[in-house]
């Protein structure tokens, strides 16, 4: 929660809302890698990238 508040505050302060989709995408990809590391779907995720 702290992170989301900080991120929102930063984007508002710097007026850099165009970075939001990029950051969200990177976080999703990062999260996906973390969640799937060692799991059965990992090979499919790796082949996607």
């Amino acid at each position, binding site marked *: 929660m702290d*992170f989301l508040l900080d991120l929102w505050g930063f984007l508002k302060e710097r007026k850099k809302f165009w*970075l939001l989709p990029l*950051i969200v995408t990177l976080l999703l990809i990062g999260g996906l890698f973390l969640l799937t590391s060692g799991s059965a779907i990992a090979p499919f995720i790796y082949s996607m990238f």
Partner: protein
Amino acid sequence: MPTVFLGISAYYHDSAAALMVDGDIIAAAHEERFTRKKHDSSFPLNAAKYVLREAGLSVSDVNAAVFYDKPFLKFERLLETYHGFAPKGLVSFLSAMPVWMKEKLFLRKMLKNELEKLGGKAPKLLFPEHHLSHAASAYFPSPFKEAAILTIDGVGEWATTIIGHGRGNEIKILRQLDFPHSLGLLYSAFTYYCGFKVNSGEYKLMGLAPYGNPNSEQTKKWTELIYNELVDIREDGSFLLNMDYFNYAVGLTMCRDKKWEQLFGIPKRQPETKLSQSYMNLALAIQNVTEDIVLRLAQTTKQLTGSDYLVMAGGVALNCVANGKLLRTRLFRDIWIQPAAGDAGGAVGAVYAAWHLWKGHPRETNCKPDAMKGAYLGPEFSGKEIRRTANRYNAPFKYYDDFNMLCADVAELIAKGNVIGWFQGRMEYGPRALGNRSILGDPRDPQMQKRMNLKIKYREGFRPFAPAVMEEDIAQYFDLDRPSPYMLLVAPVLENRRKPLPKNYESLDLLDRLYHLRSDIPAVTHIDYSARVQSVSRNTNERFWNLISAFKKLTGFGLLVNTSFNVRGEPIVCTPDDAYRCFMSTEMDYLVMNGFLFKKEEQNWKFDKQDLLSRYELD
């Protein structure tokens, strides 16, 4: 209840912690001194524990922990840089992002977790900007009521250089130069190309520059090439780097080696290979350009602020050759440079920013000579702890109750050509050993530089040593009209102390030039008759002053060779144990810790030099 701030600098290089209580810096230390890992960038857990212990406080007493930069702003710079250079930089992007996604972007959480390891609830967190931390570290502890501020380094979030004005308890930022145009990174690119390590070898490049031949066509041509091809400098000192030649914005190296080879006609020097005259000339060329930029920036700073006083911080402020030249322009009445000018100093700057800028406390300038307490802000060890080390190694020693007697004996040993490890009082904060964790020698001895470099420090033979001179005697040896307590000003050795050079001097081999007798204090006279002066004041470091004074009584010379107590690649020693091990693994003759004198010949324990050296990566 006092107001307590804990400053943290970490996760990039040279992590450190500093503690401020009611506006007073109580303690500050580099993490590397505790972990024995040079330039350690991890969270400064040991340093933070120490600074709290020094103040007799716990983390629960801390009102706020202040991190020295803004991680989101740095992330913005990374994303925009990759976006701006795309598709170049994909490899670098893919290697940088996982660390950010996993750790650095969640810095607040990481910091909280680490702070809780100190044994309590994590305090509130504050994040001043990187260059604001540098500016605060330069202005607030300085002795000036108001001052112009100039900070120059590699890069913080976006800023690489700022010009500001400090007045009362406020700092106003007037100009800012942004990444990728960076004087620090330009200098680091040359450090890399000359075969030294980035973020640690910059001193070596500065020390190498005087070996360059200023009259050679090669040096002149290369200086022109730097101006024409690499950096476009404007009258006000701002500049643009030609990014076709640099790789650091999107790559994993500093510069594009092939383009540099085409430009300068010499390949990148491989580390630890022989240094040819060409690399010395290249070092001189970039040193000249760096000094030119610093002087122009200082002129602009003067114009914008109208101040008679200048304060500096940031890694480039450790370029003491440029600092000395800036001082001699008399552009400013006086200059003060933060002794921990690099990133470690950001921890001190961060707490000052919190105290004055966030809390709005008024600023007082009644600390003499400044508020840094001589940079002696680290741990101190008692006789009991030293005795314990002696017992552990079954080490015989002689103990002196009378410190003056000890100084008289040690001065005599130095005058006879012995090299002494000198361990006293609180450890220094910042990269320089200032007489509490030092190796000392006789500056008159023509063999001293060679011996200390090759047999004690195990480092490159060309590197110079600094003199520690009694403050009242500076003018007898150096063309310097003021104290230089932090070894951050280079000054010429006085003409009347110099010896003439042979006619074929410039054509001589490096070692022949190096070992030519240049003055009556040859061990501290660099190849260009300069010296990186440390003035020692009786008020700031009485023990060290007493020792130099005893040496003066004996020899008539009120100065000593002073180099940091470590070997190449090793952090400066922190504890008596570190000191004893370093002493026993080198060819140092004596070790003095508080009142204890250890003579090498009498020691029982045999240390293996290779064992010590193999612990540390070459810097």
